[in-house]
């Protein structure tokens, strides 16, 4: 049996055409829509599409507009974009072929990439598409991807929370919950950066507990821990929310006070801290007494503030406080050489 010749006519009832291509149109030569696929008829509703003029209902946008049927016919074989002139102005892509025996043109359409919108707008079901059409698969895939993306997003949230918890842990002193050395270094670097840009200065306080070793030695480490918790409480109470309070050694603490802080304010904060530390602490029924020595410096003393220099000067000032009898605060002053740090004799 021979195959069909390219110009063999295919005789097809208009209804069958609609079943085969639910989004097709048959437009006769005078421009009237003679038949429309059932889905297209529904999308173009409520006014009946059959009998209407093609160019009254559809606007060609690409590759170019068309004002007459002659212009439309010339677009045969090209990739078309068109939209409804009325209602939702639904957009389509399509192509057209001329029919034999001067029977007009056949236009076949699809919704293109905005298909979800069109399906929603016109409440289409899978029965509105030809079984060969992958539109429903496209919608399925869109939703399936959304489900997978939701799972990924949830995973992302869990990972972010875990990372943030790990970061907090890495920056926190386990016993007191204060900042640790690492967090102090970061906060100090930030404060120095801000001061170097001339935005605002800060004060640095270095606190070393007095008589703490005795508590540890006579009442044990549990009592020592209790005292350290109390110290953390005092430091939190006497500082502001945006100050940094860090435990940097067994009984050593550093406080950063951002802002323009003068000597009087430093003395006042230090006095409150020391008074807090000197209040007796109840260690399992036994009162513990400690105090604290503080050395302080401010960023405005330095042409270019530097972490090492400031920590060193605060430490030297702290040592001066120890030498002067403990339980006090000394403010480092540039030019005045504080006594060299001989450490051992005066500490604790």
């Amino acid at each position, binding site marked *: 049996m021979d195959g069909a010749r390219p110009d063999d006519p295919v005789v097809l009832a208009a209804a069958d055409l609609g079943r085969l291509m639910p989004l097709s149109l048959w437009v006769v030569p005078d421009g009237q829509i003679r038949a429309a696929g059932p889905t297209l008829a529904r999308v173009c509703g409520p006014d009946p599409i059959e009998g209407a003029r093609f160019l009254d209902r559809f606007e060609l946008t690409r590759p170019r507009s068309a004002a007459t049927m002659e212009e439309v016919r010339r677009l045969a074989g090209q990739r078309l974009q068109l939209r409804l002139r009325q209602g939702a102005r639904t957009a389509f892509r399509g192509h057209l072929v001329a029919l034999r025996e001067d029977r007009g043109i056949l236009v076949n359409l699809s919704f293109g990439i905005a298909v979800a919108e069109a399906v*929603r707008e016109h409440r289409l*079901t899978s029965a509105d598409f030809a079984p060969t059409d992958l539109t429903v*698969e496209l*919608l399925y895939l869109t*939703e*399936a991807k959304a*489900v*997978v993306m939701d*799972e*990924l997003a949830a995973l992302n949230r869990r990972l972010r929370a875990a990372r943030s918890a790990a970061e907090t842990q890495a920056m926190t002193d386990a016993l007191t919950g204060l900042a640790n050395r690492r967090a102090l270094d970061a906060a100090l670097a930030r404060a120095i950066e801000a001061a170097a840009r001339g935005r605002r200065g800060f004060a640095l306080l270095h606190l070393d507990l007095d008589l703490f070793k005795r508590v540890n030695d006579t009442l044990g480490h549990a009592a020592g821990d209790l005292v350290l918790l109390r110290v953390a409480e005092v430091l939190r109470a006497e500082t502001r929310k945006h100050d940094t309070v860090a435990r940097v050694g067994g009984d050593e603490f550093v406080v950063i006070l951002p802002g323009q802080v003068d000597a009087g304010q430093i003395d006042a904060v230090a006095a409150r801290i020391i008074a807090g530390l000197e209040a007796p602490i109840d260690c399992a029924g036994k009162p513990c007494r400690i105090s604290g020595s503080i050395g302080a410096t401010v960023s405005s003393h330095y042409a270019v503030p530097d972490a090492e220099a400031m920590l060193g000067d605060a430490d030297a000032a702290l040592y001066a406080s120890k030498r002067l009898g403990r339980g006090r605060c000394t403010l480092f002053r540039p030019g005045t050489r504080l006594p060299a740090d001989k450490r051992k004799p005066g500490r604790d």
Partner: protein
Amino acid sequence: MHGLVNRSIQCFLRDTYGPDVWAGVAVDAGFDPQGFEALELYDAAVTDAVLFAAARRLDKPREVLLEDVGIYLVGVEPLRRLLRFGGESYEDFLHSLDELPDRVHLAVSDLELPALALDATGPSRYRLCCVGPQPGFGFVFAGILRAMADDYGALALIEPGEAAGELETVAIELLDSSFAAGRDFALALPEAR
């Protein structure tokens, strides 16, 4: 086993019996109660251990639990919607099951479901065959088919059959395809999501 399968079991246990039961099952199974990650692959032994622990803790046969997992999955709206893409009617849906593993592959390329085939065994009678290395999917599908019948408003008798090697079957008898109204399904979701 794919994390999505494991996570389905985890979410089923957590949502049906509470987080404590899930945590207990996880500990019994020697697994982290934090649970499974959806897009990771796990050793099949982990899934078996979790199912074994859940069956013992809840005092239910493993088969019943797996069927309940299937019913539970249909109750998860995004999954119910994905299943409803199978067709306009319950019968269409049954005939779309052959394609389900490929559909799943489109969305999650490494999620391997057993091969599915629907045989007609008589008027309104079908048999779903699941063939895969991991036993138990037949029961999960029995649960899914049961819940989807309700969803379409169809009346159907669903009976999981005896397993034979890697083959598991589910017998389906469709008594009335429009027994009740069924639940709503629109191809496209409403805009506000």
